[in-house]
């Protein structure tokens, strides 16, 4: 079974971000980028399928600027076979339908049996690229998948996660696309020797401009800090002063003796 995993580079969760009026997008106080955590789970799921079946390959693809190469290298370090990088020029957000169309155009004739994406990206949080790409490639699709098992040569059994701990079970004919939800199989950490090897491997690059595609226009008008739904009172002073204030607050509200 040949598997393709779509991965994205995102700002690390701990990086501080600010609205930026000039670009109508965001500014950050550091450029610490990482692989989208949900995509790490997708890569892990693909590697486990390859190991269970002991055949086939796992390739990864990413749409993003030059720096996105780092997440492709990381996926190779985790154990993926080959990487494809669709290089974009823009620094702003790419509409999810555009990302999906770019990847669909470049993998259409590559005969993957299974395409995996993360359930959503931690930065744009659209949760659209996977299901949109499935439609563009006319593939059956399931989202928020937490269990994948091969059934025979042409089918996978999957469980999708729904609200309140319920799961929706499906049998899906291959080729198919699944968006993977995080779960109880934490992504492996690339070993140093694997990373060194991964860093020497060639990566196929495709300029996004070569793929000519259109998608309905959606654009960002402005970004902002969200409003508060509660008092949001920030304690001031040294750490010990804050601890003393917090204790007083708990005592005053009889939450603590």
């Amino acid at each position: 079974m040949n598997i393709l995993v779509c991965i994205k580079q995102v700002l690390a969760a701990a990086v501080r971000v600010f609205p930026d009026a000039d670009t109508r997008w965001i500014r950050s106080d550091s450029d610490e980028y990482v692989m989208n955590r949900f995509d790490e789970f997708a890569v892990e799921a693909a590697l486990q399928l390859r190991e269970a079946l002991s055949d086939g390959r796992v390739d990864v693809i990413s749409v993003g600027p030059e720096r996105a190469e780092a997440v492709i290298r990381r996926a190779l370090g985790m154990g993926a076979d080959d990487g494809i990088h669709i290089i974009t020029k823009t620094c702003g957000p790419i509409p999810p339908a555009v990302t999906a169309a770019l990847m669909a155009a470049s993998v259409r004739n590559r005969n993957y049996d299974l395409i995996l994406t993360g359930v959503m990206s931690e930065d744009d949080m659209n949760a659209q690229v996977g299901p949109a790409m499935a439609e563009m490639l006319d593939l059956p699709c399931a989202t928020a998948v937490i269990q994948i098992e091969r059934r025979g040569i042409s089918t996978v059994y999957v469980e999708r996660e729904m609200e309140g701990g319920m799961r929706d079970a499906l049998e899906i004919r291959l080729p198919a696309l699944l968006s993977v939800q995080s779960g109880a199989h934490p992504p492996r950490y690339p070993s140093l020797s694997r990373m060194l090897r991964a860093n020497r491997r060639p990566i196929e690059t495709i300029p996004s401009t070569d793929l000519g595609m259109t998608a309905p226009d959606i654009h960002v008008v402005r970004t902002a800090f969200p409003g508060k739904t509660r008092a949001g009172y920030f304690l001031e002073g040294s750490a010990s002063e804050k601890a003393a204030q917090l204790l007083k607050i708990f005592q005053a509200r009889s939450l603590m003796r």
Partner: protein
Amino acid sequence: MTSTILVIAEHADGQIRPVTGEIVACARQLQQLQPADIRIVVLGDPVETLAETLSQKTGLPVDAIRTPHLAEYHGDTYRDVLTDFIKELQPRYICAAHTSQGLDFAPGLAVRIKAACITGVEAIVEADGEICFTRRICGGKLTADIASPNAQIVLSVLPGSFSADSSNATTAGAICYRTAISETSARTIPCGVLRSSVKASGITEADVVVAAGRGIGDRENIALIHRLTALFSGSAVAGSRIVCDQGWLDYAQQVGVTGFSVQPALYIACGISGAVQHVSGMRASGFIVSINSDPNAAIFNVSDICIVEDLKTFIPLFIETATSPHPD
């Protein structure tokens, strides 16, 4: 010709989901900015009771599409049947729920009908003369207002963002029945709905819930959370999904949309970023205290008390303060 805002009703287990009322509330708000008729569409088999509930509750016209063998949600069928219906009705806006159902069919539906798709809509505003849909980005730390000039727009409405009208409408809306001719899709075969065997581990009854997020950094630091929890009576330890995925806590302790909802008198969030999926499970708590090293963490927007500190040093310090004999 007036344009139409189409609401796609969500149901499961034969019941209309409460989020449907919230989608209607979103549609009504949109109607203020863009005059249009609102219609509700519901798919199912049987569909009669669902349609009657919708028409009585909202007073809006309902298109009930009897879809043979479709008792529960099925992505391929939803996309097929809705595409045909939308091609005929030509609504300007198509509003679904930002849930495991809506997110499964809406992006693909948008591609098929060549509509723009905006997910996770939590507010509607007008800016620069354009109707904008507000949604969260960056794990909830910021919002972005999104607009589209496209002739058709598919929206997914974030649960908990628009308040549904709880009273019944004075006059029921007209129901228009039709039957869909959907070939049972051979590419995705439903194998049933599985119910989780995970039971909440006392976090739903506790008066005080102390929750650990990825900010605790290491499995060892769970001990810190336990020590903090032990200071309170009637208390329990909970966690974000990431912490449960890591195996640092059990899934029975997970708070959020895909975990459990809690409403303790006090909720202490330690190293939790405040993603909507987590917040929806704890925002009803009586008093919320958050400890996070990032002053812009989204959790602070839903907190009563905000503490910008490294939890690894602050929690031990607090425990020491709380357990040392009082100077006064």
